[in-house]
């Protein structure tokens, strides 16, 4: 029971979280998060990759349940059973990856699952009216309800998705990286939409890596680090530098073996490579024995750059020089022949054949070398696999075991071993430690260091800044498709990298 004086003096916040904890089989994703969002406020939620933002959002939207802690929505206890329950209670979520049925008209997308119906028949007029109403609320009343969603721009699709979320009259709307694939002009339009929502009393939790954007649109902020709330306050009273300090805070630990590797001859040169829209222009030079780190936000064009170098996606312009001749057209088969190897960021969808054996996965690029005239000497092939399984301490029953049965870390070792067995002298590694445990990470770091010492040239994409700072000789930052800032590691700090990645002072101006 609350005393009258208290309820009079302060309306309860739209959303209040305290002491939220969540464990995933031994790893603590959240270790005590608090968050308070007032009604009609835009609240920026900030933190590095892995700080716990996604887990927190999943708990808020009902996809996960918290292990401990309290949640209140407008003063009422809030414990959603599932995402549908969360929506009905008043918490809606807009994911970074939009969820639209692209073949269906915009109007049907907005109403999907919430159609006005009588006895199973859709009441078209009432439905359209509600869709129109939701769009009007966003200042897009003129959007064509009959055009298929897939024929709208990404920005308009986002509006359609927000309109759908508004149908349930949410009190809290969560937006995860809403501007990551928007142009600057579209970002302005989105901000206008957010301001309208705020004026209507809807609270918006705005998650973004772009700190400048957060400063412009948000009233208040909360910073997460390693699963804890480390700072909260009014946006007007904080500087970007202060936010960066809160986000990073930690000392770079000595997980990273600094092995000696002197840079040798030039082995790879990339000149103005582009593949729009994600990759606008990137140039880099790589020497034998060098580890070149590519930092940047998700969607900044890092993956597109390494894929274009390897010939997995055709570049539109620019050239790649591997040992002499410049080429624009390349294919993976030719690259392997030249001694270039590629590690995919997506182990399950691209990196490995999960239903095939470790042996087959490990030797696929060079099957022809295990015998003559297209025959494979199975004993030699197995022996090669066995050697790497031992060397890298892959935990498995036998090399004949299906790769899909291994843990993430061991799968990654198999994918890496393919490059070693080939053997590649230029290694393009896209997120080599994604989704693997700390022990395996340390092993991968050690391996990368050893490879550089042995004269291999390595390009490494990573979203984890301490890892780049710990391992690389040179780090380049990509921002909105451009590789602008390339400097020796000693000239970078974690704060500089973040600033450059989010389009801050250190990067070249955006056109």
């Amino acid at each position: 029971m609350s005393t009258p004086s208290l309820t009079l003096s302060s309306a309860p916040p739209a959303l209040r979280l305290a002491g939220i904890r969540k464990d995933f089989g031994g790893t603590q994703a959240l270790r005590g998060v608090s968050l308070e969002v007032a009604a009609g406020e835009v609240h920026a939620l900030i933190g590095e990759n892995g700080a716990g933002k996604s887990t927190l959002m999943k708990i808020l939207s009902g996809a996960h349940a918290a292990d401990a802690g309290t949640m209140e929505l407008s003063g009422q206890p809030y414990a959603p059973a599932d995402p549908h329950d969360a929506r009905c209670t008043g918490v809606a979520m807009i994911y970074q990856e939009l969820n639209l049925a692209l073949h269906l008209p915009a109007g049907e997308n907005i109403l999907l699952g919430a159609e006005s119906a009588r006895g199973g028949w859709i009441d078209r007029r009432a439905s359209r009216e509600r869709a129109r109403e939701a769009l009007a609320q966003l200042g897009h009343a003129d959007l064509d309800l009959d055009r298929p969603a897939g024929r709208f721009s990404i920005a308009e699709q986002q509006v359609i998705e927000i309109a759908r979320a508004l149908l349930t009259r949410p009190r809290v709307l969560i937006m995860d990286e809403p501007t990551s694939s928007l142009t600057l002009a579209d970002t302005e339009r989105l901000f206008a939409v957010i301001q309208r929502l705020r004026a209507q009393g809807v609270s918006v939790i705005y998650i973004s890596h772009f700190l400048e954007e957060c400063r412009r649109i948000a009233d208040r902020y909360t910073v997460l680090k390693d699963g804890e709330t480390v700072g909260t306050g009014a946006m007007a009273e904080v500087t970007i530098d202060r936010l960066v300090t809160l986000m990073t805070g930690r000392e770079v630990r000595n997980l990273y073996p600094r092995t000696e590797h002197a840079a040798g001859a030039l082995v790879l040169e990339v000149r103005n490579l582009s593949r729009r829209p994600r990759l606008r222009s990137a140039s880099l030079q790589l020497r034998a024995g060098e580890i070149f780190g590519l930092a940047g936000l998700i969607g900044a064009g890092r993956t597109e750059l390494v894929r274009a170098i390897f010939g997995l996606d055709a570049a539109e312009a620019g050239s790649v020089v591997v040992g002499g001749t410049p080429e624009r057209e390349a294919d993976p088969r030719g690259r392997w022949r030249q001694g270039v190897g590629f590690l995919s960021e997506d182990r399950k969808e691209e990196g490995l054949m999960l239903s095939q054996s470790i042996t087959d996965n490990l030797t696929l690029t060079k099957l022809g070398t295990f015998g003559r005239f297209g025959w494979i000497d199975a004993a030699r092939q197995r022996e090669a696999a066995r050697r790497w399984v031992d060397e890298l301490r892959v935990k498995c029953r036998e090399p004949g075991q299906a790769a899909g049965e291994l843990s993430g870390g061991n799968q990654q070792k198999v994918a890496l071993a393919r490059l070693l067995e080939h053997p590649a002298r230029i290694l393009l590694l896209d997120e080599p430690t994604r989704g693997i445990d700390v022990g395996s990470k340390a092993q991968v770091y050690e391996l990368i260091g050893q490879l550089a010492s042995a004269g291999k040239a390595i390009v490494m994409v990573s979203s984890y800044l301490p890892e780049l700072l710990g391992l690389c000789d040179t780090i380049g930052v990509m921002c909105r498709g451009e590789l602008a800032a390339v400097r020796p590691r000693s000239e970078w700090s974690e704060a500089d990298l973040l600033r450059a990645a989010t389009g801050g002072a250190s990067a070249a101006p955006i056109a």
Partner: protein
Amino acid sequence: MKLPIQRLLAQAGPFLGLLVVIVLFAIPTETREFFLTYHNFKIILTQTVIVAVGALGMTLIIVSGGIDLSAGSSIAFTSVVGALLIQKGWGPAPVLAAVVLAGGAIGLLNGAAIAALRLVPFIITLGTLGVARGAAKWLGDNQTVNYDTSPINQWMTTADPFSYALPAGVWVAVGLAVVTAVYLRRTVFGRHIFALGSNEATARLCGVPVTRLKIAIYALAGCYFGLAGLFQLARLRQGDPTVAVGLELDIIAAVIIGGASLSGGVGTVLGSMIGALIMAVLRNGSQQMGWPTYFQEIIIGLVIIGAVFVDRLRQGKRAS
């Protein structure tokens, strides 16, 4: 960890299935006397040859993650081609070569269209199902193509029907199965087929020549269908453009019953051969039971569903 029952099924699945259908038909009094005799098995084996040779080609395609619906039409087409050539006085060896190449040509068309138009194999081969059937009727002037005689007629029978010898077709099928099984397991080509079917993106990333490989697979499978067409010709002793309608479904069913996955990357020649045998035993047994053909069709339909369900059970862990 897999459950013991799953591991048992994985090892012996198709064999168990074959054993079950044989035992089922060995028990009833109507069939008991004749069913388990050598001569009956000779009949069953001979009746399996066409589907078995087709299933070898289809195994390549299904393991690579594809499908070929035009197999039945290809068989009809090539049997008509063979009959016309025999009419013209060609000897067995040139006819054999020409028919196999004709099948290969249809496969080449399938593969090239799949690679060049970037359409799914289901659509392309659904199209060639009609094209090849039409072409067969056109070539045969819309009727069966008859010829006096040819040594090829002897390939699906033995001189003395009661001898213990097996027809040449059976031996060809067995030999071809061994060869196919070996190259599928032990050559770069074979392992690339598995890689393509298991994960096309990985295959591409690892430098497997995906486009060229797809064309080669369909062309080679077409050669098997051509050979099956020749055995079809030998059995009927004429070229019939209306034969083997729907046979592609029997062939696909044999491969699937044999444990291959329609999503690719999984499948064995041995399994496909046992699958083909299971279908033949079912047909043979139901005939001897005196069951009407519609009943056979129902039984075989149910067996296909049952076999794939068992397949799901044994891959339970991966499916979930």
